[in-house]
């Protein structure tokens, strides 16, 4: 995509504040997670429990918004026009998959697709924006925005390091990404909602609780069962969709060309 010929590029300048915002967002996310893991609050619905729920909610959401503010001005126009399509695909393909009674979420296909085609920054921005817009229909997803950003970021990272050059590498990358996303998102489910929001996942958490696990440990183990499988399927489907795109379209992305994302498939 050629740069704008008529108006000064708004993206020029301001790199340092954006980097600081990205660092602050990452530190806030990691710091909150480590604090929760170390302190392991037991009170859920009284006294300190309310403060922990509120602090976890606010910290995870603020981290996601800081990351979005850092990344969004750097996203090129070619990618910006793709993001709404990806967000709509997340919702529509997620709904379609849900309607055929398959026990997977598959609601991040669009985010992973953008990560594969446009890189980790665009993937992270898509994840956060998708969650913010989806929260208009389901407000409970708001604190999971940081987890969604991580999905997009990890998809871009996986593509950059060759996960799309062999078809079998995509689900492996999805599996690993699912482990990281599951672990990072578990405190939100445990401390903000006191468990999970679905009956199926709730049954898994209840089973671990029956084995004597703490709530946080039970939710983390449930996430480690649900998320890797889901992300492996999502990464595989997104990879197959990228392979199905015409080479003219995939090679128009700077990220795909620069990191030879598709290897020999790209024909470059």
């Amino acid at each position, binding site marked *: 995509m050629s740069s*704008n010929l008529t*108006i*000064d590029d*708004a993206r020029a300048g301001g790199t340092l504040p954006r980097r600081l915002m990205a660092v602050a967002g990452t530190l806030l996310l990691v710091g909150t997670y480590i604090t929760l893991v170390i302190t392991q609050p037991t009170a*859920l*619905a*009284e*006294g*300190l*429990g*309310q*403060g922990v*729920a*509120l602090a976890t*909610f606010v910290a995870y959401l603020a981290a996601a918004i800081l990351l979005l503010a850092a990344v*969004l*001005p750097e996203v090129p*126009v*070619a990618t*910006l*026009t*793709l993001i*709404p*399509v990806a*967000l*709509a*695909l997340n919702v*529509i*393909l997620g709904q*379609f998959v849900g309607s*055929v009674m398959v026990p997977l979420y598959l609601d991040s*296909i669009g985010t992973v697709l953008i990560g594969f085609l446009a890189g980790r920054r665009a993937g992270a921005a898509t994840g956060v*924006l998708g969650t913010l*817009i989806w*929260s*208009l*229909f389901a*407000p*409970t997803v*708001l604190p999971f925005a940081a987890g969604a950003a991580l999905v997009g970021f990890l998809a871009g990272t996986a593509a950059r390091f060759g996960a799309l050059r062999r078809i079998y590498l995509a689900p492996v990358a999805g599996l690993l990404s699912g482990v990281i996303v599951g672990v990072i998102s578990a405190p939100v489910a445990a401390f903000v909602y*006191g*468990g*999970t*929001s*679905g*009956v199926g996942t*709730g049954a898994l*958490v*209840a089973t671990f*609780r*029956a084995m004597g696990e703490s709530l946080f440990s*039970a939710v983390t183990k449930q996430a480690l069962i649900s998320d890797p499988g889901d992300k492996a399927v999502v990464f595989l*489907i997104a990879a*197959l*969709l990228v392979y*199905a*795109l*015409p080479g003219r*379209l995939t090679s*128009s992305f700077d990220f795909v060309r620069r990191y030879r994302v598709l290897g020999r498939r790209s024909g470059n």
Partner: protein
Amino acid sequence: MPQADQLHPFTVLALATAVLTITTAAGYWPLSLAVIVGCLVLATRHRCLGKLCALSALIIAPTFGSQLMVHALFTPGPSPVLAQLGPFELTGAGLWLATQLALRTAVLVVVGLLCALVIDRHRLIAAIDLSKAPPQLGYLVAATLSLLPQLSAKQHAIGQAQALRLGHVGRGPVGWFQRIRLRSVPLVLGSLQDAADRAPHLAARGFPAAGTHTRLREVPDSTIQRVLRRVALICAVAGPALILTLDRFSG
């Protein structure tokens, strides 16, 4: 009392944020119930009570089911057993904890959905455009909200065309994968191609435009609303801090 359509979207969001943070920090069930009832009254005034109840129930019901399984059956400590089925015991303390957690989630759901129902989307997009947020944000929200029904209709049409072309696809995982493939590949290919075609036109028009620009849609705002927004945001931060500090000192 002003109607929501007379309020700036950010005023509604700031008030909702203050209500949510204070109610969550208080963790006092009569307050949570009062907030939910207040939202239902407001929804009745805006003629969206049925929609709010239906959408809220879709989210709250599975959450409460999950809370019951996780807490009502496995809360340690002395508590009267209300029901017993094999190794599972439904205790009074567990049921109370599950209800409190579900109520906390219910406040978030009902307040959030009420905001989504009463705020005019076009006005929200205009407000984002006029704010100091990056200009890309308004475009992305507007484009996504208008693309959702378009792509949904496109997906439906693709499904019908594929059904006419191929007839029965089959059952089981293979049939499921076939259905996904037949619907998603044309949908993704067409949508990405459209987006790729749109990008040069947007860039040629100077998108994303920096600085101020004329907008035809007016977003009602006033000094009172600006003050109200600031007060609401201060309350959203100071309210929970005060409640939690008092709670800590009172033991």
